[in-house]
C-alpha cells in the first residue's frame, strides 16, 4: 500500500511546493510509494465535491497518513482547511517557515488590518478607490498565525523554502517508521567562513556594497560577514539551507548575508532577542540597526512576536 499524502498551501507563495518539485528525479523515484490524495498545485481534488455541489459547511479532505501544510493562517478559509487537514491526516507536517513561524507574510502583524485595507483598496496610485471586498471572500483573521497556534503540529520543517533534501528525509523517515534526521544547530555551525573571534567592531552596516572576498577562492576563505560588519542572522537561525552536502549556507554561496529564513534555532526561540544579545555581548551598538523588529523578526513574526506599535492604534 502506498502512503497516502495530502498537501495544502495556506497564506503562502507556492515556493514550498516548488521545493517539493525540485526533488526532481528523486520525486519520480519516490512516486510509486506515495499516493497524493489532495494537492491543489498538482491535482484536482476539490473541497466541495468534484461537481461543485457539496455543502459549503463541510470541507472535504481525504484521509491521509501524512499531511503537509505550507503557509500561515491568515483568513477563515485557511483556518477551515487547516482544521480539515488536521482532522484527516495522521501526522501533520508544518512545511516551511510561514507554517512554522509566520514567514514573510507575518510582517503584516506589525500593522492593523484596517491600515492594510485602506492602503490597498483606496490608497494606491492606480486605484479607483472602493470599499473593502467582503462578499463571498473569506474574512481576514486579526493577524497571521503559525500553524501550531491553531492546531497540533507533529513535525516542523522550517525554511523559505525548506531544502528539498530535508523534505525527502522527512518523507523517507515516515515511510521507514523512524524519526527524521533534521538539522538542529545554527547557520553559523554550518558556515565555513573564517571567524577570527571578537574584534574591534562597534556597529553593523547596511548591505550597500558587496562583501570583501576573492571570487577566485572558495567560500571557506572568505571572512565571516558579521565580522566584516554586515548584519548576518546566522548565529540565531536554524541550519538546514545548505542541504545534505553541507557545503555552505545558500545565501553565503551567493556571498550575501543570512536574513534568518529558517526561523529561530529552537522552535520556540526569539530571533530578535537572541540577535540583540549576540550583538551586545560582542560590544556592538544595537542602535545602529535600521528597522530592528522588521529586520530581526523578518521570518518569525507569528506567535505574537510582531505586533502593531501602540502609536499606530
Amino acid at each position, binding site marked *: 500500500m502506498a502512503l497516502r499524502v495530502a498537501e495544502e498551501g495556506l497564506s503562502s*507563495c*507556492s*515556493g514550498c511546493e*516548488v*521545493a517539493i*518539485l*525540485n526533488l*526532481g*528525479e528523486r520525486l*519520480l523515484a519516490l512516486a510509486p510509494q506515495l499516493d*497524493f490524495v489532495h494537492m*491543489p*498545485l*498538482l*491535482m*484536482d481534488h*476539490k*473541497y*466541495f465535491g*468534484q*461537481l*461543485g455541489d457539496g455543502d*459549503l459547511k463541510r470541507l472535504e479532505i481525504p484521509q491521509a497518513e501524512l499531511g503537509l501544510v505550507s503557509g500561515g493562517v*491568515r*483568513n477563515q*478559509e485557511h483556518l477551515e482547511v487547516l482544521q480539515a487537514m488536521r482532522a484527516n491526516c495522521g501526522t501533520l507536517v508544518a512545511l516551511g517557515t510561514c507554517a512554522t513561524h509566520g514567514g514573510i*507574510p507575518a*510582517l*503584516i502583524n506589525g*500593522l492593523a488590518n484596517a*491600515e492594510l485595507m485602506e*492602503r*490597498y483598496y483606496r490608497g*494606491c*496610485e*492606480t*486605484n*479607483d478607490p*472602493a*470599499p473593502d*471586498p467582503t*462578499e463571498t*471572500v*473569506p474574512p481576514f483573521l486579526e493577524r497571521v498565525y503559525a500553524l501550531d497556534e491553531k492546531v497540533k503540529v507533529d513535525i516542523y520543517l522550517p525554511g523559505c*523554502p525548506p531544502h528539498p533534501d530535508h523534505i525527502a528525509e522527512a518523507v523517507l523517515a515516515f515511510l521507514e517508521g523512524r524519526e527524521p534526521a533534521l538539522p538542529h544547530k545554527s547557520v553559523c555551525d554550518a558556515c565555513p567562513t573564517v571567524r577570527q573571534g571578537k574584534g574591534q567592531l562597534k556597529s553593523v552596516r*547596511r*548591505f*550597500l556594497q558587496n*562583501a570583501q572576498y576573492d*571570487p577566485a577562492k572558495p567560500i571557506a576563505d572568505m571572512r565571516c560577514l558579521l565580522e566584516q560588519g554586515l548584519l548576518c542572522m546566522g548565529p540565531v537561525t536554524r541550519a538546514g*539551507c545548505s542541504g545534505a552536502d553541507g557545503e555552505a549556507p545558500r*545565501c553565503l554561496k*551567493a*556571498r*550575501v548575508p543570512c*536574513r534568518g*529564513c529558517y526561523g529561530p534555532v529552537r522552535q520556540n526561540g526569539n530571533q530578535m532577542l537572541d540577535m540583540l544579545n549576540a550583538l551586545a555581548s560582542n560590544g556592538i551598538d544595537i542602535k545602529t540597526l*535600521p*528597522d530592528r523588529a522588521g*529586520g530581526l523578526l523578518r521570518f518569525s513574526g507569528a506567535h505574537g512576536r510582531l505586533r502593531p506599535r501602540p502609536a499606530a492604534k
Partner: protein
Amino acid sequence: MAKTINIQPVTRIEGHARISIQLDDQGRVADSKLHIMAMRGFEKFIEGRPAEEVPRIVSRICGICPWMHHTAANKAVDQCFGAQVPPAGRKLRELMQVMAHISDKILHFFFLAAPDFVMGAGADYKIRNVLGLAQAAPELAAQVVKMRQAGQMMLERFAGKVIHPVAMVPGGFAKPMSQKERDELLAGAGEQLEFAKFCMKYAKENVFAKLDQDALSLGRITTGFLGLVDPADGSLNLFDGALRLMKPDGSYLDFNCRQYADFLGERVETWSYGKFPYARVWGEGFSMDLEAPKGIYRSNTLARLNVCDRINTPLAQAELEEFRRRFGRPAQSTTLYHWARLIELVYACERVLEILEDETITDPLVRNPVEPRAGRGVGCVEAPRGSLIHDYVTGDDGCIASANMIVGTTHNLAPMNMSVRRAALDAIKGGQVSEEALNQVEMAVRCYDP
C-alpha cells in the same frame, strides 16, 4: 431549480482561487465569477524597510517566479538610489531572469496544463495530473522532470538560492561569474535549447495539431494586450524596455514604465481580494461584459507575442512567423497562450545562450556601491504571467515610504473572469453539469497560468 456550483479550489494553478457559477431555474449559466481568496499586503508591509532589503522580501510574492520580483525590485531600488549598474552586473541579471523563465514554462506546460490535453479534459481527476502523466508516458515525464531540474540547478549552482533568490543587489550583482561557471552554464544552456526544440515539436504533433475549432474557442474573448518591447526595434524583451498597450484592433501606444499610472488603473470589486487592472488611458471605463468589454487588455505569453514586432533570435522568430501566418496579429484565442508559451521557451533558451556567449559577462566589476537617499523608482520586467511593475518611493533614510505593485497575474484577472464566463456558457447547457465541463472551465483559467 437555481443553484450555485463552486469549483474550489481552482487547481493546477499557482495561486488561491475559487470559481462560482450561478445556474438559473432553467439550468442556464446566469452568472460566474473567479474569486481571488487571499491578499497578503506586500505593498503595505514593506513600508519602513531599508530599500536595499526589499528585493529579498518581495521575492516571496511568488515562489514560482521569485526571480521576477527580485529583478523588478532591484531595478526600482537602483532608480530610488540613483545607482549605475556595471555592464556585467546587468548581464548577469538578465541571464538569471531569462533562465528562470525556462523552468517556469516547462513547469506550466507539462506539470500543470498538459494533463488536460494528454490524459484528456474528461479523464478521471485521480490520473489527470503530472503523476498520471508519468505513468502514461514515463519516458517523456522522465525527460521533462530531468530538464526542468537541470534548469533549476543551473541557477542554484551559480546564484546560491533558486527559490527566493538573493544574488541580485541594488547597484548590480553580489558575485561575479568565473570562466568555469560560464563554461558549465553554456553547456547546460545548449541542452536546454535542444530540449525546448523537442518540446515545440512534441507539442505541435501531440497537442496543437489536435486543437480543433472548439478547443481554439475555449474561453474565447476579444481584448487588448500589454507587454514590454525593446524600444529600438519593437522586438520581444523579457528583461527591459517600454510597455506597449495594444487595442483589440491592433493599434498601440508605447510608454515608459515610469508612466504606468497614467495608462493603467485598478478597479476593486466586492467579491474578490484581487484588484482588476484596466486600460485607463482608453477612457472607456471598465466592463467585463462579454459582448461589450471596456478597458480590458491581457498580459502574459500571448500578449507579448501579439505586441512585439519581431523576436531577435532565429528559431523563435521562425516560430513567431508561422504563428502569425496561422492566427494573425493580434491572435485572440485563449488556448493559444500555451502555444505562445512554448515559442517563448525557445526564445528564452536562445537568449540565454546569446548572453553567455558574450565573454565580458565574466568581468569582475558587477556591483557599484549604493547610497541610501530619497527617490522614486519603477522597476518593470516581463514575468511568465505578465508585465510586472514595482513602484517604490524612498525617504531620506533610504527606507520605503510607499510602494505600489501590479503583478503579472493581476492584469489577467478581468480577462480570466470573462474567459470563465465564456467557457461556462459553452460547457454547461440545460443544467447538465459534468466533471469534464467543470474542468473545461478551469482549463480556460489554466491558459493564463495564473
